[in-house]
């Protein structure tokens, strides 16, 4: 949708809402969101930004950044696969819990690290990290000056000798992951992450459905039979063959009085079990990721929601290998499906909020593609809890429809601040009673701006626990 058309549509919708009656606070929220730009562009790719700058001086290094092994011997820094050297995340978090019990603050942070890659293609990896607190000197610096370094060569005092572009920082509604490189990069690191999330999580309520999909994995089993040679003699089958052969030979005149001593055994009669590759079949699942990318989601809420979805997504990639299909839906007042996680992850926030639009799109997709029959369906929705549709007149029916077929709906509310009664989404969900009645099918997790990564993981547990 073009921006002008978008605006028009928005205005119509706002009019309609006004007609239904709005409080001043709601007006304010709507006004803020409609005033902003209505375009969700993707961030410029980092690679492009790099090529524009051309020859930029490499970032100055400090003397302690140099080490013989890398510098002199040209070794590469060890690649630490997060599965080999790290204990599982669970174990570390467990240790942290004990710390709390002993009366000390927690120390593990599950953080995302940006690993600079070649050609500006940075890679995000999620790793547990910590700091060692000591008394250190902090530097007092004017932000416009970036510190000093040594230099050598020509140039008068005051002469500019190089430039380095500033990456757009928390600018106008940036999604997380500014310049994270291509989608492929995203997936491969997501996979790494899934492994640390351990295999403890499982998709809840998984049912046998549809034409099962095969895994690329094989199991090996002694189920195939083979004449003449093999690993284990199948005595029963062999005996049956011998009897058959001897009936043909006429060695078995009287069925009531069988004399096996006179039987002849042909080499082809021996039946063996042989080790064989078996394909494994499992129920298939479809997971919908829904994200509110309206203007109010700017900053922390988006970061939290997206982090949580990264975690769920990468865990699915790992745990269920390829047989879980993922669909990605973004919504403001209008919902649209995007093709991959990368787009889903990086699209900028803008525009108004209408949660029901996303749920409706899911319902439409499920209906049109007739997914109910063949798939276990999971829906994860992330929002800051704002909804122009204040009492859920449109959302609740869509949700009800959705849980009639879904195996689990998980709603994450990353609220800006705690308020009595909670956000709009919380209010109407609680009022609908669905959370209590159908607690098996729908879960909600509310966190606040200051949630850290371990809180996010807690959240996942809430959403997908049995």
């Amino acid at each position: 949708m073009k921006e002008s058309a978008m605006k028009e549509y928005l205005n119509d919708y706002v009019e309609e809402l006004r007609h239904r009656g709005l409080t001043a606070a709601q007006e304010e929220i709507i006004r803020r969101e409609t005033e902003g730009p209505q375009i969700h562009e993707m961030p410029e790719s980092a690679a492009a930004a790099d090529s524009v700058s051309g020859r930029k001086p490499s970032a100055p290094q400090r003397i302690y950044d140099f080490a013989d092994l890398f510098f002199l011997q040209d070794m590469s820094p060890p690649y630490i696969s997060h599965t080999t050297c790290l204990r599982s995340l669970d174990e570390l978090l467990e240790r942290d819990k004990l710390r709390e019990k002993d009366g000390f603050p927690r120390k593990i942070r599950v953080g995302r690290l940006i690993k600079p890659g070649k050609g500006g293609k940075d890679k995000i990896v999620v790793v547990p990290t910590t700091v060692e607190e000591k008394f250190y000197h902090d530097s007092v610096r004017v932000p416009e000056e970036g510190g000093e370094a040594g230099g050598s060569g020509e140039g008068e005092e005051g002469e500019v000798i190089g430039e380095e572009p500033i990456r757009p920082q928390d600018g106008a509604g940036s999604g997380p992951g500014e310049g994270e490189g291509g989608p492929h990069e995203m997936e491969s690191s997501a996979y790494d992450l899934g492994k640390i999330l351990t295999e403890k999580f499982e998709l809840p309520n998984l049912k046998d459905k549809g034409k099962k999909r095969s895994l690329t994995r094989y199991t090996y089993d002694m189920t195939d039979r083979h004449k003449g040679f093999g690993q284990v003699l199948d005595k029963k089958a062999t005996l049956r063959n011998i009897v058959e052969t001897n009936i043909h030979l006429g060695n078995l005149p009287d069925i009531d009085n069988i004399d096996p001593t006179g039987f002849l055994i042909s080499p082809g009669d021996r039946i063996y079990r042989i080790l064989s590759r078996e394909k494994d079949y499992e129920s298939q699942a479809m997971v919908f990721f829904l994200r509110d990318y309206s203007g109010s989601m700017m900053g922390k809420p988006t970061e939290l929601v997206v982090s949580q979805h990264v975690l769920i997504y990468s865990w699915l990639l790992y745990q269920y290998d390829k047989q879980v299909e993922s669909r990605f839906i973004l919504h403001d007042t209008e919902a649209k499906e995007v093709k991959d996680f990368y787009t889903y992850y990086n699209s900028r926030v803008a525009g108004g909020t209408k949660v029901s639009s996303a749920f409706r799109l899911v319902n439409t997709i499920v209906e049109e593609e007739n997914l109910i029959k063949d798939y276990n369906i999971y829906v994860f929705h992330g929002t800051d809890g704002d909804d122009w549709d204040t009492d859920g007149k449109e959302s609740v029916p869509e949700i009800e429809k959705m849980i009639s077929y879904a195996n689990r709906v998980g709603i994450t509310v990353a609220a800006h601040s705690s308020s009595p009664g909670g956000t709009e989404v919380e209010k109407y969900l609680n009022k609908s009673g669905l959370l209590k009645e159908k607690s098996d099918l729908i879960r909600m997790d509310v966190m606040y701006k200051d949630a850290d990564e371990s809180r996010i993981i807690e959240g996942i547990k809430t959403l997908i626990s049995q």
Partner: protein
Amino acid sequence: MELIDQHAKQIMEGCKERAREAGLRFQDESLEYIVSNRDLIELSPKIMIPTLYDYWVHDVEVLKGRGKYELYPGNPYETVINTRPPISFYNDNNPDWLNVMIFYHVLGHIDFFQNNLYFRHTWEYDFTGQALSDKRMIAKLRSEKGRQVDYIIEFSRAIDNLVAYHHEVSRYHQPSSSSFSQRLDFYLDVFLQNREKVNIGEYVKEIERYNECIRSYGKSLGEETFFAEVEKKYPHFRAIYEKNREKKSEEEQDLMQYLLNHSEFLNKDENKWMKSVMEVIRKTSLFFQPQIRTKIMNEGWASYWHEVLFMQDDRIKGHEVDFARVNAGVTAMQRVGLNPYALGMRLFQFIEETAEKGKYTFDFRRIRDAGQRKEYDAATGKGKEFIFKVRENLNDFLFINNFCDQDFMDHYDLFVAGKRLNQEKMVWEYFVKSRKAEEYRKMVNDTLYHPPHIQLDMGKSNEGKLYLVHRFEEKPLVQEFIANTMMGIEYLWGSPVQLETAEVIPARSPSAIYSMSGPSPVPADQRGKPKIKWQRVLYTMEKRKLTRRILYAMD
């Protein structure tokens, strides 16, 4: 990890012979290992010491916080460690000529470790051996005491940059015992001058009287007679002298040492084991201190020698171009950035040349004429001898401050590179900020390792409280770390702890915007250099709760 093969070892032995002939001094034995990627994963968190104690933080990626503030100055990927025998690590598939270069570099380091006086306290023992027995002890304690051991390690590491390293090293370099007694020194140097503030005439009279006493009664009896008179005149002298001696010995101790000796908590019978864990952390920290403080010199010295010795080596004919390429990569001066190899090596070369011409002499310094100064060459033949002395006696701070002069700057076209924001183009600009040696030295000094100087104030430590004072050096402490660090100290001390430090008074009006991240919207012309104002602040950690109180504004 496995040892290098016989062929490579033979090359190493050849390098040792040649290095010795050139004047380097080091012990005969050395161990060389091949390290794989896997080994590095295990070694790097342990700062390349294979036998260092286990600690869970070693298994987790530690945030270095680069850009915000410099946390961990030590780079864990060193090629050679200061043990007996020295152990060095190599890539699996280095060609021979490259190994020759690296071996010389390593021998340069070993020579530095074993001759630079800042390493004096590491000379008498093998750190890996010591570390192994410590590691076993900690493992044993862990099996008995559980995770409490890790808390002790954590809290001790939190203050392991407050070890009195210089004090430790200076013990090895006491001037041969002064011919006068401490009491006399105190009386004449401190008591009379600072406390009683006597005038010169009286002071000289006292010295006269002392000499007179010695002359008449002999050395020991004479001094007694002298002080008998003193105590008649100043009856309080003895008490002041005793008190001063006590105070001095306590204030000289670093925080960790003080806790070990005086913490009631640690000295309870059931907690005594904690002290041995703390000792391990303290020793480890002391061991690494000189390495951090001699980075430029150490790398410069090693680079200087690998270049000199490689070019003289007869075994590597035909690989000069390969060497030139690698060597340039290591020791080229960057356009922007500080490379310790390049800077240190050039400085050593420059010092040698300058000393060779006899320019570090009084005669030369008296010359005012620029032409004469330029042409001056006394051909002393003592350049080498001079740099060997430098390598023995200096650390980075002294090295830079003594020898990085304007001649050196001009010779190598050095400058201080600044970085500033260009709002119109939205780029960081690098520019030539200054070509003055003074500025350059200041810039290097600012990047050198310098832990905060935090001392006990015995006067204010009362009622069981521990009062720490952070000396003001125009640098605040990293605020978010104060709480946990002090919590650790409180735990080890067993009673409340206070810390007096300085902080920047948050500015209001335009400069308030500076505190926000990202480019500020203030137009360029409104920006002036905001003057930084400081205030003294007192933190109190009591029962794991931190409180902060502003003491007074500083001027």
